[in-house]
């Protein structure tokens, strides 16, 4: 390859401006189109949002259909694996069931006591809010960005910012609500920052996603005496979420305190999205 200044400019011009035999657009034209698209992302208008939402819905649905063959193969493998683990699980489940029966009796007692206390402090919690159960349509499992797509959108009442639960555990919040689908930013994403409350000490902190299975606890009080195993809940600070939704337990990794989530974020299938409506409240 011999490169003189003329060759360089000719090659650049040919590469970016020239269209091939079957090409309809030049590279430069498409790069400009991409920059325009990127600029439009910053603009927040009703008509643009509608177009964006429609395009995303179509792509999500198409992606769901095209991933069916691949997913079927993966699920077939998982099923075979599961059959091998059935007996082992049966034994474990049997012993757990006995433990649970004992715990159930304790829970019943605590529930009655809790109801009495709640009446006294007149507080509301996550269980007194309406929730919408949705299915995880897609889980990209990217090592860079941690988010999942739900199969319900603003048509079903989902809105941006709503907390998402796996069972009763907090797993993320809605960052994008389309007409028929929505995106959940998971709590382990690098861009996730959640105000949390650590019990029984009552410390407030910010839980930052670490991009993997754990999240880092930041902005803890000075001279804190945080204990490993303490339970982390949403604090409800700033009115972003309801308070008291369990997230995970405190773990010490190196010299930093992390949160090990109660929920396995790689296995999300059906999740509950908590709406802001109270049960029994007027529409």
């Amino acid at each position: 390859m011999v490169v003189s200044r003329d060759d360089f400019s000719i090659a650049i011009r040919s590469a970016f401006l020239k269209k091939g035999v079957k090409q309809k657009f030049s590279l430069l034209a498409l790069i400009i189109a991409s920059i325009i698209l990127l600029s439009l992302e910053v603009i927040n208008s009703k008509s643009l949002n509608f177009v964006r939402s429609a395009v995303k819905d179509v792509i999500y649905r198409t992606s769901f259909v095209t991933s069916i063959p691949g997913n079927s193969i993966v699920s077939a493998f998982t099923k075979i694996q599961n059959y091998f683990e059935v007996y082992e699980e049966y034994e474990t489940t049997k012993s757990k069931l006995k433990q649970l029966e004992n715990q159930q009796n304790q829970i019943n007692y605590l529930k009655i006591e809790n109801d009495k206390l709640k009446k006294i402090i007149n507080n509301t919690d996550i269980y007194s809010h309406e929730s919408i159960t949705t299915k995880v349509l897609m889980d990209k499992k990217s090592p860079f960005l941690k988010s999942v797509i739900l199969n319900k959108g603003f048509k079903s009442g989902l809105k941006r910012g709503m907390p998402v639960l796996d069972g009763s555990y907090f797993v993320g919040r809605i960052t994008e609500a389309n007409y028929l689908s929505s995106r959940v930013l998971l709590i382990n994403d690098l861009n996730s920052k959640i105000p949390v409350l650590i019990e029984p000490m009552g410390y407030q902190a910010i839980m930052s996603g670490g991009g993997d299975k754990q999240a880092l606890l930041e902005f803890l009080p000075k001279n804190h005496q945080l204990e490993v195993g303490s339970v982390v809940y949403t604090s409800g600070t700033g009115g972003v979420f309801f308070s008291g939704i369990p997230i995970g337990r405190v773990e010490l990794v190196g010299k930093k305190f992390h949160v090990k989530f109660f929920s396995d974020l790689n296995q999300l299938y059906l999740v509950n999205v908590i709406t802001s409506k109270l049960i029994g409240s007027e529409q």
Partner: protein
Amino acid sequence: MVLFRKSFVSRFFSLIPLLILFFLAFNETDFNFEKLSFLSFNLIYIVIFYWVLKNPDILGYGFIFLAGIVNDVIIGLPIGVSPITYLVLAGFAAYVRYLTVEPSLIYDWIVFVPSIAVTNSVYFYILIIFFDIKVNHIALALNTGVTILLYPFIGILFNFLFKIIIVQKNV
């Protein structure tokens, strides 16, 4: 009838790179292994670079642009980030194509290194500077490294496909 069948077979083989590109852009099961992040690689980059270098008419720039939009929507990035990065990579490939007299896989591989480095830098800085989206730069660097290492192996497979396409066209 025979002519129709020949043209159909030739067309089908020419469409394979495009089908791979859109399958990867649309499909959920990609090559980002969460548990083995050091093994993640970006096959789309290899597909784009290889086929634009070999014959840009097989993988049109318009389709690359569309695949980028699909990828952005699926991953959840601002729409336009992937099209720019893909087109920058295609630009590198097209530039090298105009300068290369005797193409060889080893030479393509060497050129692929700076191309993917610049492309991923563009991707990284657009997300950080314009949209304030954090990206795990270690995972991205590993992904880039593995993609570079795998280029010659996947290139050999694509060479077979390229030969089949040429043979089918000349039949």
